[in-house]
């Protein structure tokens, strides 16, 4: 009509684009015109409170995600085992030439560990300063040592990265005769039940002309380090830094160990790529080097053990010494730290913030109602004025 349409001046050209109006029709979020909205003071206060609350909760969620989760998992150890590395650092109160170190195990082998370990002469008084304790310390000491604290994988990874060498033996001061022997090093035994022992010459293994005078026996010892698997001196094991003394000459120290292979890792996915048929890297440097894949520095393969002790004097026809009998458990423990993925963190943040907003909105509504309710009540009780009351005081 009016000829407008002939010149292209109709609603289609002036009104909204059809596509845009189609999209607009989908808008499910109602926005009211600003003139119909009312902003209140309490609303503003609530908004600030809600923003603070959601920021704080988002912060805690981020912190939780950052720390990750530590999972402990048991599984049966895979691969065919061969060797087990034993790392030893012990000081015995007898001269070096009087001591023999050997391992006998269930496969019938005897390992002349004395050939692979270093024996350094030293004096007894030079040891024992670094807070050594007897095995089976009192409960307070164990709590202080953090026995019941949750393990942090990063502590172990950090400890594993430190130096992997044995400390140098302190020099014997001039004028003093060495009366003790420090035996240290890593030896490779078979990965079977075994028994390694430090005995005196002539007492234990049959040798001619090697008898040692009974008065020079003294099997008191400091164990600085006893661990299994690859050598990480900073990792603490139950027998590390222990001291055992005796006054009796013929004394037998017996330690019974149960070794559990353990893996600490922050990269659980990389562990799945491990070859199942090679020797486990927890068994020592042989196993660690044998693997075709290089391990990331995020994984520490080691062994933990539990120890009990039975020590007593023995009559003179028995063999005295320090005996460590160990057995290996088939079940391995994996302690892994895992972090949830970024998408799930994002979803959790979204959930938290929306929850806060919704809950806050409802609380605000309820508080408004409560205020309204109270206000209506008050208006009803002291109503004097024209229509609703309240004008009496103002008139005249």
């Amino acid at each position, binding site marked *: 009509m009016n000829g407008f349409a002939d010149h292209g001046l109709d609603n289609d050209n002036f009104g909204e684009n059809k596509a*845009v109006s189609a*999209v*607009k*029709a*989908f*808008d*499910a*979020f*109602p*926005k*009211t*015109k*600003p003139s*119909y909205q009312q902003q209140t003071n309490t609303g503003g206060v609530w908004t600030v409170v809600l923003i603070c609350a959601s920021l704080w909760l988002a912060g805690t969620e981020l912190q939780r995600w950052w720390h990750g989760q530590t*999972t402990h*998992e*048991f*599984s*049966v150890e*895979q691969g*065919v*085992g*061969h*060797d087990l590395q034993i790392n030893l650092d012990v000081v015995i109160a007898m001269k070096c030439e009087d001591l023999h170190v050997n391992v006998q195990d*269930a*496969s*019938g*082998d*005897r*390992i*002349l*560990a004395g*050939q*692979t370990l270093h024996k350094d002469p030293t004096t007894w008084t030079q040891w024992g300063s670094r807070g050594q304790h007897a095995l089976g310390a009192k409960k307070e000491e164990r709590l202080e040592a953090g026995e019941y604290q949750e393990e942090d994988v990063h502590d172990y990874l950090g400890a594993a990265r430190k130096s992997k060498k044995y400390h140098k033996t302190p020099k014997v001061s001039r004028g003093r005769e060495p009366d003790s022997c420090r035996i240290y090093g890593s*030896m*490779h*035994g*078979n*990965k*079977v039940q075994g028994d390694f022992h430090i005995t005196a010459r002539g007492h234990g293994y049959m040798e001619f002309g090697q008898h040692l005078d009974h008065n020079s026996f003294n099997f008191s010892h400091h164990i600085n380090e006893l661990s299994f698997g690859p050598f990480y001196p900073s990792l603490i094991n139950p027998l590390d830094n222990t001291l055992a003394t005796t006054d009796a000459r013929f004394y037998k120290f017996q330690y019974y160990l149960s070794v559990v292979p353990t893996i600490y890792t922050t990269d*659980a996915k990389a*562990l*799945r790529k*491990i070859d*199942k048929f090679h020797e486990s890297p927890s068994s020592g440097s042989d196993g660690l080097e044998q693997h075709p894949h290089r391990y990331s520095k995020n994984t520490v393969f080691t062994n933990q053990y539990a120890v009990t002790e039975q020590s007593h004097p023995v009559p003179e026809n028995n063999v005295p010494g320090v005996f460590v009998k160990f057995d*290996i*458990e*088939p*079940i391995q423990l*994996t302690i892994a730290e895992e972090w949830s993925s970024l998408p799930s963190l994002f*979803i959790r943040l*979204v*959930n938290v*913030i*929306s*929850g806060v*907003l*919704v809950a806050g909105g*409802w609380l605000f*509504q309820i508080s408004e109602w409560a205020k309204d309710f109270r206000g209506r009540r008050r208006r009803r009780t002291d109503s004097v004025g024209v229509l609703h009351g309240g004008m009496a005081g103002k008139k005249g």
Partner: protein
Amino acid sequence: MPAKSRFTKLDAFTKTVEDARIRTTSGGIVTLTSLLLILYLVWGEYADYRRIIVHPELIVDKGRGEKMEIHMNISFPRVPCELLTLDVMDVSGEVQTGVMHGVNKVRLRPHGEGGGQIESNALELGGSDAAVHLDPGYCGECFGAPSPANAIKAGCCNTCAEVRDAYASVSWSFGRGENVEQCEREHYSEHLDEQRREGCRIEGGIRVNKVVGNFHFAPGKSFSNGNMHVHDLENYFTGAEGTEHTFSHTVHHLRFGPELPDDVIKRVGAKGMQWSNHHLNPLDGTEQKTDEKAYNFMYFVKVVSTAYLPLGWERTGSILDIPHELIELGGYGKGEAGSIETHQYSVTSHKRSLQGGDGGDDGHKERLHARGGIPGVFFSYDISPMKVINREARSKSFSGFLVGICAVVGGTLTVAAAVDRAVYEGAQRVRKMHSS
């Protein structure tokens, strides 16, 4: 306006009247995007709900007096079946008698000819093969040795095998059986010579007591007396021209207990830490070779009981209630409703020459091997007190699924509303800034 009923007064979900409502393009886009996102997340929740995961648990194994089945498939390319003996012993050194077994000896062609199968016979554990076609009154001579305890006819040695048993019982070596009437009748020495160059494969299963013990493959007939367990090694060590016997072997398969079905392995192996909590047997496909006759291979096996309980398994009965004799070999451990009781193991291998020596070849000269013993392959197994239970469970219950959906929908819509509001306000401010 409709009359205000009580419910209307309670309405907390305020709806904006159409006239007062503004619709924007950005709102539409945000709505559509959030709808797509909600659909995607709901689908993810549903997939999570349908997923079945396996929870491993570790408990102390409180079973008593159970049995354990050992299934094996091991081939010895350079020891003929005639010379090979399988013995099962327990921790005290006693040969386990009454072991239910279904083991076959398969004769293999010599290694040079490809090692194919010739024929398969059942293996008798500690017994002798039955004699055939003999006069009922016949009583064969035992040639100086006492008659074996399990002879067909007491006091007599009616077959070559019984004469061999009789000689083994007094630790006499038997040799090739010349001038022994029973063996010449059975053509024992001819068979022995023919089969010299052959190999042997042992396959099948045995059911033993679930205690610490060992089973071993060694040459010649064996005899146990108290703590002593000896084998007749003469034939093995002398060999024949051109052939020397050694205990090179290939373990094709060794498992303790029934196998998990394939689909279960896939499910258990899919998730899980490094290796899954149920692994492939470590000794499968192990091959060890040697050229020395007097060589001894030892495998130290630690066995851990493992149970697999499928979804919805309730303890209705126990497989231990059925006397084990009624369960056929290979079926022990298969419980009701698809539950399976089996065993995983970890193993250490060791080998040494019988003449002693050291481990210099492995780079460990300080390791002295013991001397003596019997050539052969020994498997010593030890039972762990721990038991692994792999239990299937749904990762989420149905109500958990609904809660997840509510969380997804609510969360997305709230955030989308906030985003939309922010965009709208922003646009308004920008417009105001432009117009002013």
